[in-house]
Structures are given as structure tokens and as C-alpha cells.
């Protein structure tokens, strides 16, 4: 949903985020909604400025979000508070699941399909009965061995998934969900999360009271949800709630992912992620049937729904990348693409440095010694490299780990024994370069350079472009097959000025796409072809540069009073400058808005098309009463009815129950964090059985209820210091606002341990020890979990040894563990020890007096 759409919400739940402090610009829309009468709720372990501005603050123990959200699901189902007309029409609540499905309620905490020997799932028993459903995400298949076309996804063209509209079938999604969440009662929520029962019920009632035909509610989250081993499942739990309440595709409804940087969304769309090609196309995998382009397309292309267009996007991408070297007789250059064997995301990459697999590293816009988990292991990995290139605008801890690092200061590494050759290159800042940022609203916004970067500073685009040119030159005469991709790569961008800065707009034009024959810009992705006649660097961005000289991302025309409120003239939001995804769901089955005050798009019978305040997220002329002719085995959008709004799903329905695409279960389930001071009160299974764990020396984990590490630790950011911190720690104006690292401790725990406000403390885990001054504050409260008191402490992770504002690196304490689906690291809800005092060895950090 769009940030500004928050002001249309009647209830906003901020959870997994301290939005007021860390997303203050977006938070103004929360404040505006509240001014208009919305109820604002903050669910968070700490009482922060967001809590202070909320109508309700619900404290929960870090890592228990699914228990809390599962409690809301149970509350909705058992009290019949769901938006029945919406849910029955637009979700898979009535769909019947395979007979082999078994719930964690039946099996001690794991779903059917779990292989204890491998710690992974097969999804066969999660499928719609008689079907194999492709997922809507880039990894349409998540297992390593799959069948090919004809035996699986094609079943989706043979008829609609089986349903029971009476909802009585024991294996329909409704009954499965009721059984799955039956024990997530308010009392259980209190026992697991520590949130008082009445506070939980106040949240559940406020949210359900403010949802339905006439009202909508929104969730806002940040890394307080994603940085867990169950991060994706937490978001899924919110998606189920929003699906049940009809809060998707409608004004003021949705789930807003608050991004941590200006263009995190952009770096997912045109990805720096290992497992995706641009705009969510799957990266080929060696162990799948991806040996040829045809096999890859056959096995990955869903038969039904919008993703059936995938071949057009893939071939157009290959044409954009390889130009004249992408031909029909060489599979459009498909074999130039590297094929994955395993997970090569950041955590495996760090571990692979330690093992000598990775020999060199480029670091652009990151400071992993501060920002990545298990900082000591990161230093050890960097010390194993042959070469390291760091580009930043000021010295970072990552660039000088070899000189001032913790391990060097502690005598565990010696600079003269570190073989890594480090290149520190100055980079330009945002105002010194042209380009775009894509924000959480999928809004692609252009920005111009306002001045030249000083000295040798250059933009990242300059660096990558000129590096590419040199690599092409280096391998120009190579006869090695592995160098063919670099030789084939299209790398001709116009340069400007003495510094030969490549034109960023030329890159955006290429991403938008063009016709190959006459190099004309393509205005919409519906015009992309799979015959090599079109080139497009990212199909979802098609339309951002629809004609020569027309950069829509530059547009800055806001809506005024009386306008639609979609701000369609402000920049470009993908796809098709659409502001609200799945907005067909804002209208009922017949195409009429569910309510007058909550309307976005509707069916115009006279005109024979969808119209409204936003670009319809649907086939513009598809009638609401269109039904697939199953006798013809319809494919693509022909297989979805005129009342199936969720067009990226193979059945067009909001997936309350997910048959494919998730590696850790079709329904969110409460597991304790990998490190927890308590046992799982709901299941024998203690933590997510599919979590990514790599125990090894230096990355040991604490067992459940380990008495040596009794406290819950969570890390977070500060308003005044940005992420890895260097940009704000070297700036006196911001550094003086947060001059030194600290740990937040409740008065109760401080008394128990003899810690005084501003006194020194030592935090320790099996990964390392650090020290910080104590901030004794009532913002931290002890939790009553069952018959025990559980204390939680919190620490900002933004400090290091560089800049004016210094302090020990909190990420020294953290282990390398990953979410089962995304491999995102865990920074919330680990366990630690805490004591008053100081470390014997200060680790070289200069502390304020």
C-alpha cells in the first residue's frame, strides 16, 4: 500500500517497528489518520515514542509475534468477525486441501512433509486436493527435485480447485485454520507473549471493529518482524488477518513494509539478491530442470494467472542484457546466466570467506563489521580474503578492520599476518549523483545530482560501469566458455563530462524496455514479447520511461483537494503506475465498490471496462461475470474469473493457506526463537524446524533455558544514527545527539543485578562480550511468562570505533542464523548474560569519559 494511503485507515497496527523514530516521514500519515479518528496501536517489547503516540501499547516478549497474531486470527474466527462476503469470494477459505495434510496440532509441532533428517519440508500434502499449485514468488518451486510440465501445474487448467462453500469439510482451509489456531486463546497469548489478556483483547477488538465493509485497517512493520527465523511467517500471519478482515486492495487497508533505507525496495526489484533475476524472475538452479531455456520456462511458468506471462519477461530480459548475442539459436543467451547450486546470500557468503571459498569482496553501501551479525566472525572472514574493495564516503570499520578491528585490539589477529589487500575508494553521496530510489510504496523517484562529488569520489554507477568496461576489455580475446557472458553483455551507455560518468537515465530507459528493431521505448509490459522483438531490463518497471524524453519518475504533480488522492502524477509506482495492488478487491463480485467511502476501482458497464481512482489491477475489459471455460483448459488470465482479484496467484485468490512457496509451513505457527529463556508452551517443537542454522566454532548457539544466558536481547536503530552509522557518526551534529553506545535495562533488572543508571555493564554470549553504559529506563519492562519473570534488554547496533559517536558493536553478540525462506539474519530475541562492570580488555574502543 502507499504510505499516504495510511491516512485512509480506521485502525493502524504498528508492530515490529518503532515507526515514529525510525520512519518519521511516513509516520506523519499515521498521525493524520489518528487525527481523523483512527485507532493507532503499537505492539512492541519496548515503550518507545511510537508507543507514546499510540492509543494502545501492547508489550510483547521479543520473538512471540506469531502467538500474538495467531491469537487475533483465533479471535476473528471464533467470534465470526471476518468479512464473510469478501472472504468467501476472494480467498481460499473454502478450498479443500490434500487428504495427506497433517497439522502441527497432530504431530507435535511440525507440518506433514517434514523430513527430520534434512530439516526441510516437501509441500505435496499442502496442495489443493488434486492440484499442484505454483507459488506467486520467484522461486515457483522450492524443492530441489521437481517434475516437469504436463504433470503438475497443468492441473490448474482442468477446473477450479475443489471447494466446500458450506465450510464443513474437515480439510477445507476454514476448518484447518480453526483447528490450527484453537489454542491461541487470549490466555495462551498472555502466557506466551507476556502481553496482558485485556490489552490483547483491546487490540483485537479495535482492529476487528475498524474493519469490514465500511472500515479498513493497516499493519506497518519493519525489521522487528523480518529479523527472526520465522520472519516471513510473521508477515504471513498479518496477511491472514488482513485477508479475513477484507483489508487488502482497499483504501487504508494493507500491510506496509517499512524499509530501512531509501531504496531497499529498489534493490529487491532490480535485485542485489542472489536468487532473483530483475523484477522477481527466478534465478536458474542447477538441480532443477533448468538445463535449457525451454526446460526452465516449462518448469517455472505457472499455467494459470498473470505469471503465465513469464516467458515474455525472461526473453526480453535476456535481450536487454545480451543484445545481438541473444538469438533464437543460442536460447536468447540463457546459458550465459549462472545457475545456483545453493544459498549464496550474505550469511553463507560470510561463512564461505572463513572457509576460503570466497577470495575477494566488494562492499558498496554496507558496513558489515558493524551491521552484520556475529561481527567477530565477519572480521575473521575478511581477514581470510585475498582482496577487499570498500567504497564509502568516510572510513568505515569494514575498511580498517585490519588495523583497528576488535580482534586486532584483542591480539587475536595481527595486521602483519592479515593477507587481505584492502582498497578503500571514495564514493559520492546521494546529492552528487543522478539516479532513482524506489521506496516502500514501490514509488520510483528520480533525483538529479546537484553538485560534483569532491576529489576522486565517484558514484557507484560510475564504478560498476567502468569496472564492467575493463572486464570486457580484459576478456575480449578469451576463448574460455565461462567468459562468454562478459563478452556478450551489452555495456554501451553514453558518458558525460571529463569523468566519463555514465548516464543513469540510459540505464532507466533500458530497464523500462524498448523494441529491438527500431529502439523505441515500450509504454507497458503488456507489449513485451517472447520472440526476441522486445528488450526489457525489468518488466515491472515498464512504463517508467515510456517514450523518448519522458522520464515518469521525474514527475512531481501532487493531488490537490478534490483530486482522487492516488497522487498518480507523483513519480512512478510499479507496475503500470498503479498505487494499490489487487485493487479489484475494492469492489464486490459484481464490480461495485464495497462501500462508497472505501472505493478505488469499479466496473463501468456502459464503457465495458474497469475504471476509478487508480489504475485497475486487472484485465481492463474483463467483466466481473466472466467465468473460465474449463472445457478448453484455459491458461494465463483466461483461467481466472472476473471475480478473482489476486491475479499473481494461480487461482486468483488470497491465500489464507499457502500450498506452495514457503519452506517452513503453510500456516504461521508459534515457535520460540532459536535462543529462548523459556520452553515453547504450544508445541513440543521448540523452534522453527526449517530455520537456517550453521553451528561451528565461533557461532555456537544457546540452548533453551540456558541459565548462563537468561535475558532476552534485542537490537535496534536510533533516529539520530543511520544504520551502519558511519554517515551520521562522522557528522558532529548527529553524533552529539547520541554520543555513545548504551544498553537499555529495566529498573527491576537493574536492581536485581546492581546496575546503576549510566554505570558500565558487560553483555555476553557464546559469540563474544562487549561493554556499554546502562540506560536504566521504564521503557523496558519485565515480562511474566507462565510462572516466571523474563527480563529483556535492548541495545542499538549502530556504534563502532569510527566517527565521533563510538561504542562497542552490538552485533558481536549475535549468531549467524537465518530465516527459513529468506536467509535474513536474526537480530531480535536472542539470549545473553548481563553484569555490572567493565571488560578487562576494552577492545580498542575509545569510550567517552
Amino acid at each position, binding site marked *: 500500500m502507499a504510505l499516504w494511503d495510511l491516512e485512509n485507515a480506521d485502525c493502524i497496527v504498528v508492530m515490529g517497528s518503532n515507526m515514529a523514530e525510525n520512519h518519521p516521514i511516513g509516520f506523519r500519515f499515521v498521525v493524520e489518520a489518528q487525527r481523523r479518528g483512527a485507532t493507532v496501536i503499537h505492539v512492541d517489547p519496548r515503550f518507545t515514542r511510537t508507543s507514546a503516540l499510540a492509543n494502545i501499547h501492547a508489550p510483547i516478549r521479543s520473538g512471540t509475534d506469531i502467538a500474538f497474531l495467531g491469537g487475533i486470527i483465533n479471535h476473528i474466527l471464533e467470534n465470526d468477525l471476518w468479512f464473510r462476503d469478501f472472504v468467501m469470494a476472494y480467498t481460499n477459505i473454502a478450498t479443500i486441501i490434500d487428504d495427506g495434510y497433517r497439522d502441527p496440532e497432530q504431530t507435535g509441532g511440525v507440518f506433514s512433509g517434514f523430513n527430520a533428517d*534434512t530439516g526441510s519440508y516437501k509441500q505435496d500434502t499442502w496442495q489443493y486436493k488434486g492440484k499442484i499449485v505454483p507459488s506467486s514468488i520467484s522461486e515457483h518451486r522450492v524443492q530441489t527435485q521437481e517434475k516437469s510440465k504436463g504433470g503438475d501445474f497443468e492441473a490448474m487448467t482442468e477446473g477450479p480447485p475443489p471447494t466446500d462453500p458450506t465450510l464443513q469439510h474437515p480439510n477445507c482451509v476454514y476448518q484447518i485454520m480453526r483447528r490450527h489456531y484453537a489454542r491461541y486463546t487470549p490466555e495462551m497469548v498472555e502466557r506466551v507473549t507476556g502481553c496482558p489478556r485485556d490489552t490483547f483483547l483491546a487490540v483485537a477488538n479495535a482492529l476487528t471493529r475498524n474493519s469490514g465493509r465500511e472500515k479498513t485497517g493497516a499493519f506497518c512493520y519493519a525489521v522487528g518482524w523480518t529479523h527472526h527465523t520465522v520472519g516471513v511467517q510473521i508477515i504471513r500471519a498479518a496477511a491472514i488477518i488482513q485477508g479475513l478482515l477484507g483489508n487488502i486492495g482497499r483504501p487504508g487497508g494493507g500491510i506496509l513494509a517499512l524499509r530501512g533505507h531509501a531504496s531497499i525496495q529498489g534493490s529487491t526489484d532490480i535485485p542485489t539478491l542472489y536468487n532473483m533475476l530483475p523484477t522477481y524472475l527466478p534465478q536458474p538452479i542447477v538441480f532443477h530442470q533448468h538445463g535449457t531455456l525451454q526446460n526452465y520456462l516449462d518448469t517455472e511458468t505457472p499455467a494459470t494467472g498473470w505469471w503465465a506471462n513469464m516467458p515474455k519477461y525472461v526473453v526480453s530480459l535476456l535481450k536487454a542484457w545480451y543484445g545481438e548475442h541473444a538469438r533464437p539459436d543460442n536460447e536468447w543467451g540463457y546459458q550465459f546466466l549462472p545457475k545456483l547450486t*545453493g544459498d*549464496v546470500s550474505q550469511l553463507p557468503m560470510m561463512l564461505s570467506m572463513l572457509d576460503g571459498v570466497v577470495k575477494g569482496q566488494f562492499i558498496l553501501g554496507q558496513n558489515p563489521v558493524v551491521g552484520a551479525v556475529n561481527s567477530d566472525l565477519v572480521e575473521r572472514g575478511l581477514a581470510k580474503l585475498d582482496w577487499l574493495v570498500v567504497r564509502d564516503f568516510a572510513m568505515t570499520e569494514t575498511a580498517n578492520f585490519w588495523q583497528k578491528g576488535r580482534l586486532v585490539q584483542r591480539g587475536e589477529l595481527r595486521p602483519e599476518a592479515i593477507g587481505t589487500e584492502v582498497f578503500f575508494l571514495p564514493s559520492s553521496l546521494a546529492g552528487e549523483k543522478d539516479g532513482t530510489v524506489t521506496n516502500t510504496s514501490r514509488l520510483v523517484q528520480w533525483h538529479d545530482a546537484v553538485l560534483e562529488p569532491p576529489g576522486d569520489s565517484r558514484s557507484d554507477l560510475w564504478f560498476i560501469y567502468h569496472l564492467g568496461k575493463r572486464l570486457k576489455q580484459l576478456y575480449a580475446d578469451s576463448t574460455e566458455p565461462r567468459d562468454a557472458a562478459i563478452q556478450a553483455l551489452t555495456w554501451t551507455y553514453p558518458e558525460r563530462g571529463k569523468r566519463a560518468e555514465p548516464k543513469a537515465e540510459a540505464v532507466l530507459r533500458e530497464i523500462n524496455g524498448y523494441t529491438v528493431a527500431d529502439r523505441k521505448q515500450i509504454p507497458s509490459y503488456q507489449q513485451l514479447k517472447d520472440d526476441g522483438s522486445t528488450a526489457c531490463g525489468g518488466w515491472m518497471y515498464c512504463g517508467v520511461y515510456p517514450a523518448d524524453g519522458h522520464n515518469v519518475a521525474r514527475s512531481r504533480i501532487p493531488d490537490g483537494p478534490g483530486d482522487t488522492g492516488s497522487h498518480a502524477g507523483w513519480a512512478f509506482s510499479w507496475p503500470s503506475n498503479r498505487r494499490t495492488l489487487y485493487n479489484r478487491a475494492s469492489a464486490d463480485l459484481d464490480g461495485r465498490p464495497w462501500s462508497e467511502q472505501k472505493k478505488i476501482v469499479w466496473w463501468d458497464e456502459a464503457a465495458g471496462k474497469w475504471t476509478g481512482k487508480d489504475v485497475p489491477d486487472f484485465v481492463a475489459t474483463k467483466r466481473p461475470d466472466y467465468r473460465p471455460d474449463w472445457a478448453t483448459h484455459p491458461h494465463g488470465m483466461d483461467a481466472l474469473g472476473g471475480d478473482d482479484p489476486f491475479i499473481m496467484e494461480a487461482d486468483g485468490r488470497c491465500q489464507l493457506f499457502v500450498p506452495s512457496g514457503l519452506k517452513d509451513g503453510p500456516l504461521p505457527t508459534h515457535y520460540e526463537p532459536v535462543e529462548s529463556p523459556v520452553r515453547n508452551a504450544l508445541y513440543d517443537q521448540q523452534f522453527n524446524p526449517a530455520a537456517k542454522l550453521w553451528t561451528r566454532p565461533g557461532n555456537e548457539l544457546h540452548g533453551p533455558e540456558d541459565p548462563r544466558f537468561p535475558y532476552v536481547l534485542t537490537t535496534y536503530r536510533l533516529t539520530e544514527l543511520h544504520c551502519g552509522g558511519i554517515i551520521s557518526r562522522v557528522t558532529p551534529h548527529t553524533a552529539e545527539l547520541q554520543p555513545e553506545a548504551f544498553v537499555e535495562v529495566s529498573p527491576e533488572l537493574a536492581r536485581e543485578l546492581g546496575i546503576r543508571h549510566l554505570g558500565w555493564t558487560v553483555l555476553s554470549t557464546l559469540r563474544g562480550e562487549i561493554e556499554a553504559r546502562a540506560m536504566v529506563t521504564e521503557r523496558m519492562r519485565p515480562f511474566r511468562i507462565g510462572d516466571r519473570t523474563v527480563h529483556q534488554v535492548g541495545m542499538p547496533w549502530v556504534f563502532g570505533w569510527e566517527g565521533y559517536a563510538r561504542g562497542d558493536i552490538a552485533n558481536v553478540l549475535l549468531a549467524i542464523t537465518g530465516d527459513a525462506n529468506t536467509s535474513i539474519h536474526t537480530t531480535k530475541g536472542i539470549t545473553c548474560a548481563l553484569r555490572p562492570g567493565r571488560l578487562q580488555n576494552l577492545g580498542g574502543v575509545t569510550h567517552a569519559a
Partner: protein
Amino acid sequence: MPLETQARDALAAVDKALAEKPHKEGHTFSAAARSLCLVRDSLSARQKDDAMRRRWLGHINAVISVVLAGHFPLGSVPWDEIAKARDWLADFAAEVGARPSPKG
């Protein structure tokens, strides 16, 4: 250490992983990756750039890529593929053992 010995050590480490089939721990595969990378580094360090060296490098890199799939799997661990990679490694070790160690 002679290349043949390194290759035999790497083979033993991969065999250990195949025998133990570990999951959720990093020791066994980490040891296999480290020993394989020693072989790769030895080949990389050879100054003589002939076809055999390049072929061996390609061979050992392929084995490393598959073993990493066990250490960092995308779904379930592809044990069958790792077993095939083990056989490639065994072939490689045998070939290395059958040839005189090149100089430089």
C-alpha cells in the same frame, strides 16, 4: 603438501559428510569446503597455465559448487548430486595420483 594428498584429504572430508549427512551444523561441510579450497588454491598457485591445470581447476570448482549446496541448501540437501560430485573428486584424485607432480 602434495596435490594428491590434498585431494585425498578432500575426498575423505566429503565422504565424511556423505556418511554423517549432517544438517543444521556447519562443521562437517565447512571442513569439506576448506579442504577442497586447498586443492583449488594449490592449482591456482601453479605458474604453468596448461590445459590440464585449467581442466582440473574446472573440475574442482564444480565439486566445490555442489558441496556448497550441501552446506547451504536451497531446499533439501541434494545428497545424490553430492554423491556424484564425490565420484568426480575420486576420479580427480586418481588422475592426480597417476601423474607426476608438475613443477612450478
